[in-house]
């Protein structure tokens, strides 16, 4: 009887992590940042396949990596949120609970399956001044191995994440007006696009969670609206 080769658990995990990181690193970055009227989610995206989506009234989703995998996570999030809202109330649907559920599921796949999910996702929830305990906006990031972190102000996932985070750390300010926040986001994304001087508005996917809207606060900006806000 032949013995299978022994591979240490550390080595298995390290290999899986490297595989996932490589897959995610090949793609482009996505930036989520708070501005004075809510949260803006931006991604460089030339295709019509969305990387950003609406989950619920105050919650948005962004994913990077393998499209089929993060889009499946997006749909799961919509089902989870609509089910919660139906069973309890619209105010009971919370970003943190969803981010935790993602963390569990993605972590489960990472440990059990041969192939980890090659994704990183953002769950962003805009604050509501009338909802006690939820006045502040929240941004959660879940990595390919299920590790979860929360962020204030801004968060970058995918691609050249470290470089962009560094850039935003020195340039980001709280309570920026929308136009300035979008210009900052675009400048940051441009740093990631090698050899490209400017990312044209038609190659940007931008969605907002606007505090001022009633009910569903998610809105996708058209290229024309985006051009207007960027002043380009």
């Amino acid at each position, binding site marked *: 009887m032949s013995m299978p080769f022994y591979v240490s658990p550390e080595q298995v995990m390290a290999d899986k992590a490297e595989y996932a990181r490589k897959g995610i690193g090949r793609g482009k970055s996505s930036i989520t940042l708070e501005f004075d009227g809510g949260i803006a989610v931006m991604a460089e995206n030339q295709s019509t396949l*969305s990387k950003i*989506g*609406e*989950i619920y009234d105050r919650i948005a989703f962004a994913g990077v990596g393998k499209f089929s*995998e993060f889009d*499946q*996570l997006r*749909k*799961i999030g*919509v*089902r*989870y949120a*609509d*089910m919660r*809202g*139906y*069973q309890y109330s619209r105010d009971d649907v919370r970003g943190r609970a969803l981010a935790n*559920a993602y963390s*569990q*599921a*993605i972590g*489960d*796949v990472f440990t*059990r*399956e041969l*192939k980890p*999910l090659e994704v990183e996702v953002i769950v962003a929830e805009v604050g509501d001044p009338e909802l006690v305990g939820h006045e502040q906006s929240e941004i959660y990031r879940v990595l390919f191995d299920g590790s979860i972190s929360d962020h204030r102000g801004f968060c970058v996932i995918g691609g050249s994440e470290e470089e962009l985070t560094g850039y935003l750390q020195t340039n980001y300010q709280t309570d920026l007006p929308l136009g300035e926040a979008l210009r900052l986001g675009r400048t940051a994304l441009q740093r990631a696009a090698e050899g490209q001087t400017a990312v044209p508005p038609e190659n940007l996917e931008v969605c907002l969670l606007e505090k001022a809207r009633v009910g*569903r606060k998610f809105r996708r900006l058209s290229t024309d609206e985006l051009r207007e806000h960027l002043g380009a």
Partner: protein
Amino acid sequence: MEIPGFGTYRGASFSELLQVDHPQLTIDWSRLGNVESLGVPHGTTVLAFQYSDGVLVAGDRLATEGHRVASRDIQKVYATDDHSMIAIAGAAGPAIEMARIMRVELEHYEKIEGQALELDGKANKLAQMIRANLPAAMQGLVVVPLFAGYDLRRKQGRIWKFDVTGGRYEEADFEATGSGGLYARESLKKSHRSSVSREEALDIAVSALTDAADEDRATGGIDMQRGIFPTVICCSEPGIEQAGEDELRRVYEAVLARRSSGGSSS
């Protein structure tokens, strides 16, 4: 790849998601006896008609339990999204639940698919939900709503009525249903024209509900004493808009003044 812990349903329909992954939240009506004998509240009169900008849907506020008043101010007309609404008649509990699921259904589809359903698709989906309710209807809980909305593609208002088996019938001009529906329809037949303005449309709606309340004891008229007014929602290209109480009070007073000064049915 299967992502653990999130159920098995993969489609874009919320009502199917409920049945497949959360059957504990639905009821198997076929196992129950006649539920009507329990005395559940019933909604009474709702109506819908075309006017120049789109479509108007209205309903009184009374719910009855046999000969008794169950509630004086229930809501029977619900917006299901920015351009469609549902008006319920029949057993109030399942009808309101159906309106609620319909609302989640439309939003759910839009989020999953990244695109809203066409108005035709929405009416079709509602017909399937009514058909799925057939076992409950057989137990006495009949739900037959009206569905209306503004079709952004055809640039016109549209109205559908349904039967308990999920039959779906589009109405060109007007429709009314519920216990006072017959009287409301008679009233609309005489007063309705599709070319009327919003202002005239409100008058026609209030007149029809007043006529229905006059002839059908289960239909609630306008209750000036308690300040309870019907729900009247207009839907046109910019979206839906509910008529305010002050406006309805003014319209109702005009209708009353016309009638008491010897005017005829309208």
